[in-house]
């Protein structure tokens, strides 16, 4: 089968590989680059577990071919921690606020929340819920996922996190 050369930047590193055109981006990331952080959940573009950040957009990488991402700048969960090894505010938020149970949806949730906070640094609870409506948590742990994102937003804005009264 004919292959195409693709080059892209993944988590700040330049990668060049040969791919079959039909290779989905999620398979390319997981099986050729061995970046297994993003998961394949539903494989039908519903669940968001495969979400990556691509050229400033949140994209479901199970519904894009790797060849379409030729030249793109991609970030996955493996590229989220700070360069000194400390956690990104979102990762910290998910840990502090118990934003994960089984953890399967977490990398997709964090990548989606990353772009959401880039576009809207101080989202309301409603905006967070709408913003992550393309990500499913099979443990139904949404309350704490929302809190985790609020925690991260507060930290990134340099203000103390205050939990809303229930």
């Amino acid at each position: 089968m004919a292959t195409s050369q693709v080059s892209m930047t993944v988590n700040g590193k330049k990668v060049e590989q040969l791919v079959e055109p039909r290779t989905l981006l999620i398979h390319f990331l997981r099986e050729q680059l061995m970046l297994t952080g993003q998961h394949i959940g539903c494989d039908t573009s519903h669940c968001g577990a495969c979400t990556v950040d691509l050229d400033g957009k949140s994209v479901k990488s199970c519904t894009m071919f790797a060849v379409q991402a030729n030249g793109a700048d991609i970030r996955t969960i493996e590229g989220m921690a700070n360069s000194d090894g400390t956690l990104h505010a979102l990762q910290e938020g998910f840990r502090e606020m118990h934003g994960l149970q089984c953890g399967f949806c977490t990398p997709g949730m964090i990548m989606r929340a990353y772009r959401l906070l880039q576009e809207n640094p101080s989202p309301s609870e409603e905006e967070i819920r709408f913003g992550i409506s393309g990500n499913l948590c099979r443990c139904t742990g949404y309350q704490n996922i929302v809190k985790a994102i609020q925690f991260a937003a507060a930290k990134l804005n340099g203000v103390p996190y205050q939990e809303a009264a229930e």
Partner: protein
Amino acid sequence: MIPGAFAYHRPSSIEEAVGLLSKLGEDARVIAGGHSLIPMMKLRLASPTNLIDLGNIANLKGIREDGGDIVIGATTTQHELIRSDLLARKIPILRETSLLIADPQVRYVGTLGGNVANGDPGNDMPAVMMCLGATYEVKGKSERCMAAREFYQGAYFTALEPGEIVTAIRIPVPSAGHGYSYEKLKRKVGDYATAAAAVVLAISGGKVTTCSIGLTNVAETPLWAEEAAKIVTGSTLDAATVKKAVASAEAITSPASDGRGPAQYRTKMAGVMLARALARARERGGA
């Protein structure tokens, strides 16, 4: 799920894309956002042997004013429609509709051109385009314009000929201060409509002076409810008139019974969505 093998082409101009499409013949498909086509390829419901990616053609993108029209490039994404200040001012129903399509990730990638050209009766934009009286600019061996109201012939079956690509969507800007609404009933985020209704109207002196109505996913094609709109025009949108218009709109539906409900239910929901859309459009139109 892994799609069948194909050869990938990434033209950088519309002419090159049209040339490839005509050269490669019927086993070639164009791909824009791919959020309808790739799932179908993964299920092997579609197995094109050649894929022509429109993603690298700069002049297929963008939103511009042209006289009294707004022209939107076919590969403009739903996300870009939502973020457009020009559209928010001039044709706000497009933002309202876009926000009800799929989910955030899909809207970053899914395109207006794909939504209108694919012929999926579940897509939201076709009924809105019929409501707005949009035309589709098409390029194949020659160029032509097709009215949205004459474009849809059956499920996944449109007036597009083999070798043709929708390059842009041209929409006449409704009058300033017009009322509008897109009301969509769906089971969950990301679902297609159980039924949905688009309304654009103008009101003067308490009376409806113009009205157009589109219906989504209650027939093999999107529907333009011409009779219902006529019933409403000239009225004050009093309860009796709305009831008559709703009955007229319900009469032209022929939905399938499926996971979204039995056909009679979906017909009734089309009526409910229309009544709500009329009420909201009336509020916004300043009655």
